[in-house]
């Protein structure tokens, strides 16, 4: 076995996320059509495509956030770390410890900066103060926010700028130590400088986490992702190495979208 692993070619690294024959429906409306997709650990996967094509629907399937929408259902398999996340034995609470999510608009809790980051630990029943403090500090350092807020941890998070709030939200997600971080257009509400900071951050984070990011911004996808998947009207038209998708797309529709002919 060990011998084998050493000789393994890249493609045989076990996938962290596997999507098989996935269809997704909002009541009668089919939002995703026969999606097949594999994501390797410690990579950044970008979802691109015109709005309404199903990117958010797919990313929210990975942590089952669509469960709260009446009439939503899926067909097919979504396997994360070898486990079918839609099987009856999976508890969403446990899944979401492993699969964190950062939203489009920064959404800190109306609490102190410290309490925001500590929340994920507290709901797990962790009481050890020192442990929590260390984890909060570590997470805030990971998102390069620590120096800006370390003297104001008791202050309300709403006092931070939009960019700081979004980094806080990332820190809050990292504090639970997930293996996957989902980001749904995390910079679309931010100014260019804050956006650049978060892009740098994502680049750092992929050493430790697997990241799936939805973005409207083509340059962003090109800058930060290893793999890119292009979606159109609920179908995944093409997926591949980011460089290949942007320089040498196989599908005409991908090319049109990337060159700005529509979308």
């Amino acid at each position, binding site marked *: 076995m060990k011998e084998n692993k050493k000789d393994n070619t890249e493609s045989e690294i076990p996938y962290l996320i596997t999507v098989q024959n996935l269809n997704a429906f909002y009541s009668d409306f089919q939002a995703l059509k026969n999606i097949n997709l594999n994501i390797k650990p410690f990579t950044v996967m970008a979802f691109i495509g015109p709005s309404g094509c199903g990117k958010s629907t797919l990313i929210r399937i990975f942590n089952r956030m669509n469960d709260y929408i009446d009439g939503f259902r899926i067909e097919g398999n979504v396997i994360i770390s070898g486990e079918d996340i839609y099987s009856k034995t999976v508890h969403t609470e446990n899944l979401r410890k492993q699969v964190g999510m950062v939203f489009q608009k920064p959404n800190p809790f109306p609490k102190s900066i410290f309490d925001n980051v500590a929340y994920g630990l507290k*709901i797990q029943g962790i009481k050890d103060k020192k442990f929590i403090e260390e984890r909060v500090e570590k997470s805030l350092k990971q998102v390069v926010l620590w120096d800006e807020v370390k003297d104001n941890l008791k202050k309300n998070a709403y006092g931070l700028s939009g960019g700081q709030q979004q980094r806080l939200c990332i820190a809050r997600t990292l504090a639970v130590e997930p293996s996957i971080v989902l980001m749904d257009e995390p910079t679309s509400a931010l100014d260019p400088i804050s956006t650049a900071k978060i892009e740098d951050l994502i680049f750092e984070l992929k050493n430790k986490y697997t990241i799936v990011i939805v973005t409207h911004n083509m340059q962003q996808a090109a800058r930060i992702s290893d793999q890119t998947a292009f979606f159109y009207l609920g179908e995944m038209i093409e997926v591949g190495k980011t460089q290949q998708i942007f320089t040498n797309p196989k599908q005409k529709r991908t090319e049109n979208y990337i060159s700005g002919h529509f979308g």
Partner: protein
Amino acid sequence: MTNIQLNRAKDKMFATWGVVSTFFGIILLAVFIIFILYDGLPRLSWQFLVSLPSRKPENAGVYTAMMGTIWILGLTLLFALPLGIAAAVYLEEYIPKGKFATILEINISNLAGVPSIIYGLLGLQLFARTMKFGGNLLAGSFTLSLLILPIIIVATREAIRAVPSSIKDASFALGATKWQTIWLQVLPSAFGGIMTGLILALSRAVGEAAPLIVVGALAYVPFAPKSPMDEYSVLPIQIFNWISRPQHGFVVNAAAAIIILLVITFTMNAIAVFLRNKHQKKTN
């Protein structure tokens, strides 16, 4: 007159009408309060607050009725708040959508408009007779709890609905259960709204006489209640009782009691405003 001039004139008329309507209420209230203060203030004293009822107006005090009101308010709060919040949380977060939910919703809103005497009759049959409480504080506060439950439920539901879904999403996405999300995020965020609704509901309860008379509150009780099983009177009933007496001294007593009732109501409203502002500062 040009069209513009006409519209301006209409505008002015409407603004004036608005001012008049606003001040009409305020002035009426002010006049009423001035009369009451004029009549009642001289009568207000420590002795008036701590004296038991008496046949002589100058000896009579408001102590038993005031304590009755405080007991009733406290017990009503104790029963109605947890029930009201739980019901609102259930209706907002848990109930499966469908006919049942719709029927329930319409009925709860309608309940808020049912005349209080009807609640009194319900309380009389249910609490005083069937559950054999008789005319004690429990029967009275249960009845008032029913009366203000719809108000608390409606206010709490509105407050819950006003909590941005982005906050709930964030909580769920971190692995929180539904209950944790409600308890740690939704209810704290809704706190200001819930408090406002609660205190408005209680200020309605504090002024109620009719349903309490029906469930057996007394116009005359010799002693202040010491436990929920005791008989009681409340300020509005005491006031009503005094006003209907022929001697002028009792009318003065009634005015003084009205001042106390108003102070209680205004204090409660002030607390509501204070809590809400304090909470808003924390969240903004």
